[in-house]
């Protein structure tokens, strides 16, 4: 067992036993859903359905219902795509990168962060698909030869790299998440009281039995998947940034895009995790597992990645002047002082100023402050994408082609709809799935649980002396145990 310094804050508060952890996580699933859940689910579903309606209208009418025009061919849709993909970066980062670094605090949040990731990538994937206008031709992005000959998709194109990156990310993330879920589904299965839930969770648990060999494989598979997912996380948003960086548009043609986009993605992803986690821990009584310490750790990540993003903004400005390229310089002057100055100002305030407040310990340990900042950061990150995309292309090389982008109500509806659908998925997840990796959390109870940390002497000595006794005075032990165990032992036959 790993030893942890006593001055380190415990990760599991209160005097929890293994059984308490099971109870705390399974109770919200087994109990009736609170009224609030139905209300939130209803609201999310209505918004989601409105979004679906907007998408259907778009498919029936054409891309013209969006606010795009000849100059601005990419705007609201790809902003939302990048925004959602960015949000979908925290889950895998938490579960994969933090697993490789053996960060125990990840265990309380990795499950729901990964669920959030998967749902966010669903939402992201929808935008390129509907932007095709002809959804039924969506399979054309797959490497298939066309029917006229053997023209394949263009493997030189970052847009195709994106197809591979996003689909690999989504499917690997899904598998990683599900492999972790299986033992926890087994726990729920073995506790289930009604026939329906027993049947459902039996299917979901894949017959998991918790054999030593199964756990041996489980640990290795988790480690190797984490090792594979770590470069994957960084590659996905790098490739998303290539969509812009490999073009020749001033403002997009920037070599710092890949690291800067990855940092921005982690930044917005962690902010979304904070928003969801702060609500979830309250609503599902998980305050003992997700508490100030976890929030503080995540705020530090937000602060670091926010600083990287801020540095990148300033570097871009400097290089646009230092490069001596007039078009590049104009793109950035126009960004900050042109007609979209307000979006630029929103981005700068939300993304550069607000994370710096996390240097103050009382602020980063304040849950209310964190909640507000987490929303501010996500607004800022949405504006970042909007600024990069729209402000770079709305001033074309020919002044006669200059234009502005105004979102139509369908643009707004589709975007709101994805937020609604995201919450529909997340609420269903919180209702039926174990939101905490409950069996993984049990492994850190003895090293990071409050009751074990604060009373290390009594507990460990007892255990240690047992080992010593058992190892040395084996025969004496047998007699002692036989005496006291004969009274309270219960011998029951196992029912087949």
């Amino acid at each position, binding site marked *: *067992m790993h030893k942890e310094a006593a001055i380190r804050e415990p990760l599991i508060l209160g005097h929890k*036993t293994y*059984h308490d952890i*099971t109870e705390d996580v399974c109770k919200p699933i087994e109990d009736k859903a609170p009224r609030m859940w139905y209300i939130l689910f209803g609201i999310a579903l209505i918004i989601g359905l409105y979004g679906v309606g907007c998408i259907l209208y778009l498919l029936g009418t054409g891309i013209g219902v969006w606010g795009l025009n000849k100059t601005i061919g990419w705007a609201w849709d790809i902003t939302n795509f990048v925004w959602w993909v960015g949000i979908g970066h925290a889950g895998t980062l938490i579960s994969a990168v933090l697993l490789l670094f053996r960060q125990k605090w990840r265990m309380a949040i990795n499950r729901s962060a990964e669920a959030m990731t998967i749902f966010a990538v669903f939402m992201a994937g929808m935008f390129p698909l509907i932007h095709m206008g002809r959804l039924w031709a969506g399979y054309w992005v797959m*490497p298939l030869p066309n029917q006229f000959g*053997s023209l*394949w998709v*263009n*493997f*030189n194109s*970052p847009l*195709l*790299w994106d197809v*591979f990156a996003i689909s*690999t990310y989504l*499917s690997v993330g899904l*598998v990683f998440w599900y*492999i972790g879920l299986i*033992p926890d589904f*087994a*726990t729920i*299965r073995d*506790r289930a009281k009604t026939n329906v839930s027993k049947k459902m969770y*039996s*299917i979901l648990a*894949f*017959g*998991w039995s*918790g*054999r*030593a*060999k199964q*756990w*041996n*494989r489980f*640990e*290795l*598979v988790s480690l*190797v*998947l984490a090792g*594979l997912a770590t470069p994957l996380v960084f*590659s996905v948003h790098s490739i998303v940034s290539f969509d812009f960086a490999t073009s020749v548009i001033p403002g997009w043609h920037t070599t710092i895009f890949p690291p800067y986009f990855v940092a921005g993605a982690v930044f917005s992803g962690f902010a979304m995790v904070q928003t969801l986690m702060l609500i979830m821990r309250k609503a599902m009584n998980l305050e003992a597992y997700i508490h100030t310490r976890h929030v503080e750790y995540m705020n530090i990540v937000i602060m670091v990645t926010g600083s990287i993003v801020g540095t990148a903004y300033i570097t871009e400005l400097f290089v646009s002047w230092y490069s001596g390229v007039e078009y590049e310089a104009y793109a950035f002057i126009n960004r900050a002082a042109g007609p979209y100055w307000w979006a630029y100002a929103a981005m700068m305030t939300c993304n550069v100023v607000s994370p710096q407040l996390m240097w103050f310990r009382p602020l980063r340990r304040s849950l209310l402050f964190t909640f507000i900042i987490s929303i501010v950061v996500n607004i800022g990150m949405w504006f970042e994408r909007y600024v990069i995309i729209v402000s770079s292309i709305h001033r074309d090389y020919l002044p006669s082609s200059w234009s502005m982008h105004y979102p139509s109500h369908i643009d707004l509806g589709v975007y709101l709809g994805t937020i609604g659908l995201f919450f529909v998925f997340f609420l269903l997840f919180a209702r039926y799935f174990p939101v905490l990796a409950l069996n993984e959390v*049990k*492994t850190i109870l*003895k090293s990071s649980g409050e009751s074990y940390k604060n009373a290390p002497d009594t507990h460990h000595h007892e*255990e240690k002396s*047992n*080992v010593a006794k*058992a*190892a040395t005075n*084996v025969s004496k*032990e*047998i007699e002692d*145990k*036989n005496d006291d*165990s004969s009274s309270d*032992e219960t*011998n029951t*036959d*196992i029912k087949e």
Partner: protein
Amino acid sequence: MAEKVIYAMYDDDDVLKDGAKLLVSKGVKVSEVFSPFPIHGIDPIIGIKNTRLGIMAFLYGLTGLTLATFGMRFFMIQDWPMNIGGKPNFSYMENILSFIPITFEFTVLCAAHGMAITYFLRNKTLPGMPAQNPDPRTTDDKFVIELRTSENTKFSGEELVTMLKATGIVELDQKDI
């Protein structure tokens, strides 16, 4: 002789580990351990070899790498040599940079899914499989050691039970099969 299975239940992972150590030192073969979470360090005690799934993942990854390389060479160089901006693709090596992202993604895709499928098959965990843990509490907070008389012919059933009772068990079940 009828084979007997003995299930000894513990309520602490460390007690189980010490118990298993003690049993093994006396020459008892522990056939299985069921636990709600991985007990670190139990595998060498009860003689479980490390899984080779990591090697499989590497091989699947290698397969993906090869497929992606040869696939893209065929699609972009041989089958329909694409000419972009007057710059035709003459050889794979001249264009290798733009093929790296997809090669990487496809390697990861094959390694991860190949390993996951192998993991499910080797574990015999597939949709619809029945649970095989001896007690529903072993996925909650109880830990079970399984002994089989057929694997411990040196000892009688009673001797095994006596030895188990010395290891701090909380419950004992026996089953004839």
